[in-house]
């Protein structure tokens, strides 16, 4: 009896094939799908039970590598002047990765006060260049933009970190080109003749004082917010018989034929933590020692300490008119410590007086 049962089960199992298994097809693609080359960065830290000697040895090796990279000469120095292509207004240069470090005022020479945001360019290096033919970005459903533009991809990293704190996969991105891993990475789409060799350091002098840049960063995460904070609605009165609707949106749609809420109606929801680009921000001052840029205005997204990405602006009236440092400004020993815009008053300068004209 038991034998026959077993046979029955076996025959039933034989009939089942892998090909018969139907999977539910997903019609809606998720908004973000990591590309095939995506390497997760965070590592689970574990206690490795290393002896103190071994720890010291690892630290020593790390320091040696770091010193080697610091001492490395910029590869641009070897490139001869003739090989470097000329800049023209249609060229797209590389950008920079910077950290927002705070705000403080500057004064112009006619006594006006300008609020500025300070951005520090932290230890930027070129990691890799991928020419346009080889560059296969993440597939998107809608448009094949690669047909339209012939732009290469320049990978730039910022802030060198200890290789033991990140995953092996992530380290592989860097070790394949002989660099130490970086904390922040960004891909800049550039014209092929604006490429730079691996290991080129980038400084704040990549831009000039008076230029306009676009700043891309993530806005401050404010969580789930109501309509008053998120969309600036007025709310309803505090008194005069108003009950329980002081901060509510009120009416959200009409009845009649179109008895529904229209798409895009402003409602409560998650606010902030989105990518935003502030375009056409002027550089007012620059420190070459600490690589700090003073940007006009306080509208740069993100909180203090957030990373932001700087590009040459695409606004037609503020585009670069004269050739900038191309492909970038190499390291020069005796640069002046500070550059100021002509309109900006220097703090060490004499008190402003208005002469009678």
């Amino acid at each position, binding site marked *: 009896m038991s034998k026959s049962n077993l046979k029955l089960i076996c025959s039933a199992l034989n009939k089942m094939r892998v090909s018969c298994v139907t999977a539910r097809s997903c019609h809606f693609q998720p908004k973000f799908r990591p590309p095939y080359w995506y390497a997760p960065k965070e590592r689970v830290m574990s206690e490795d039970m290393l002896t103190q000697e071994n720890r010291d040895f690892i630290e020593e090796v790390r320091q040696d590598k770091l010193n080697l990279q610091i001492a490395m000469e910029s590869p641009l120095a070897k490139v001869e002047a003739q090989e470097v292509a000329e800049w023209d207004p249609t060229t797209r240069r590389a950008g920079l990765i910077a950290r927002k*470090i705070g705000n403080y005022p500057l004064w112009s020479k006619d006594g006006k006060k300008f609020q500025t945001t300070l951005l520090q360019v932290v230890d930027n290096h070129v990691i890799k260049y991928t020419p346009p033919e080889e560059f296969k970005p993440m597939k998107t459903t809608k448009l094949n933009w690669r047909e339209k533009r012939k732009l290469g991809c320049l990978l730039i990293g910022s802030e060198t970190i200890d290789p033991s704190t990140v995953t092996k996969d992530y380290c592989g991105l860097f070790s394949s080109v002989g660099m130490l891993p970086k904390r922040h990475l960004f891909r800049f789409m550039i014209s092929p003749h604006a490429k730079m060799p691996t290991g080129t350091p980038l400084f704040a002098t990549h831009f000039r004082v008076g230029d306009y840049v676009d700043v891309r960063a993530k806005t401050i995460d404010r969580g789930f917010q109501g309509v008053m904070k998120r969309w600036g609605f007025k709310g309803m009165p505090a008194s005069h018989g108003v009950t329980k609707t002081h901060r509510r949106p009120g009416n959200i749609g009409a009845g009649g034929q179109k008895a529904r809420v229209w798409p895009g109606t402003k409602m409560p929801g998650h606010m902030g933590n989105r990518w935003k680009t502030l375009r056409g921000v002027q550089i007012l001052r620059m420190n070459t020692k600490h690589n700090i840029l003073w940007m006009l205005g306080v509208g740069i997204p993100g909180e203090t300490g957030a990373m932001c990405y700087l590009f040459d602006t695409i606004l037609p009236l503020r585009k670069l008119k004269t050739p900038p440092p191309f492909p970038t400004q190499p390291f020069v020993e005796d640069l002046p410590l500070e550059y100021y815009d002509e309109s900006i008053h*220097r703090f*060490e300068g*004499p008190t402003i007086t208005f002469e009678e004209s």
Partner: protein
Amino acid sequence: MSVIRKSSLDILSVGKWILRRDCRLLSAVPEKVEVAEKAQEEIEKLSGRKRRFNNPVLEYRHVYPEFLPDPNPKWRNSLREKMERADMLKRRSQIDIPEFYVGSILAVTISDPHAQGKTNRFVGICIERKGCGLRAEFILRNVVDHQGVEVKYELYDPTIQSIQVLRLEKRLDDKLYYLRDALPEYCTFPQDMDPEMLPEGTPVPLNPVQVKLKPKPWLERWERQDLKGVSNIEEHLKEKDRVRRELRKTPWEKYDLMKQYRKTIPAEDQTEIWSEVYNQLQQMRVSRKKLSRKRLFTTPKPQLG
């Protein structure tokens, strides 16, 4: 001989100072402050503890409060603070920004873009001092032609040509906004007021004057703010106000150590900051003092005719 002469000179100057203080308008009860100081000393003796920070450098936090950054950790960044301090020192090398407190009487001269080739001088009592770094600002108040006038100045604004302290003193409160609702004579100062010099080495005097408020309506609910510099606040209150004041009291806040900690910069951070700027500030002080002495002892030119 010389010692005697020196001591007699000192006595003279102190005597002058006391005389002037007594003659000063609205400064009636100076004993009160001394009592408070004595009480504190006694407490210290009783508890047998020394003051925790007797570092003289830390005393600069009263003289130059704007060199300390905002304690909110969301806005702090060591590099930015360093750049800011460097810029402040650069500006201070151009203009003498003296030591002053809320309650001091200042004269500020600025260059005015709407009156080119001229300067604009305003005398008033400092009713508020706030902001840190290059954003530091203070408000001067005066009554001009029976009309209260307040001007907000930024400490590091490059259009400020000079800041002169006419009378260096402190008042009983941190903010003197209640002067807006006080009788006008408490903040009326002549525009041609002469600077009063304090003998060297004296501590900053505390003016224990208590102002009289005008009847309601007021700009703020002064009765809830625990003000020491107002004498007649109870006269204008109704029973309702007193009840609400009691309801609004937060007596537990003085025990909230975290709240205090979040509002202040820790002493370790402060020593770092002051060690960075101390030398330059000290040099500026000394050189300014020398200059002012030189100015004092210039021989007057013989008048012709």
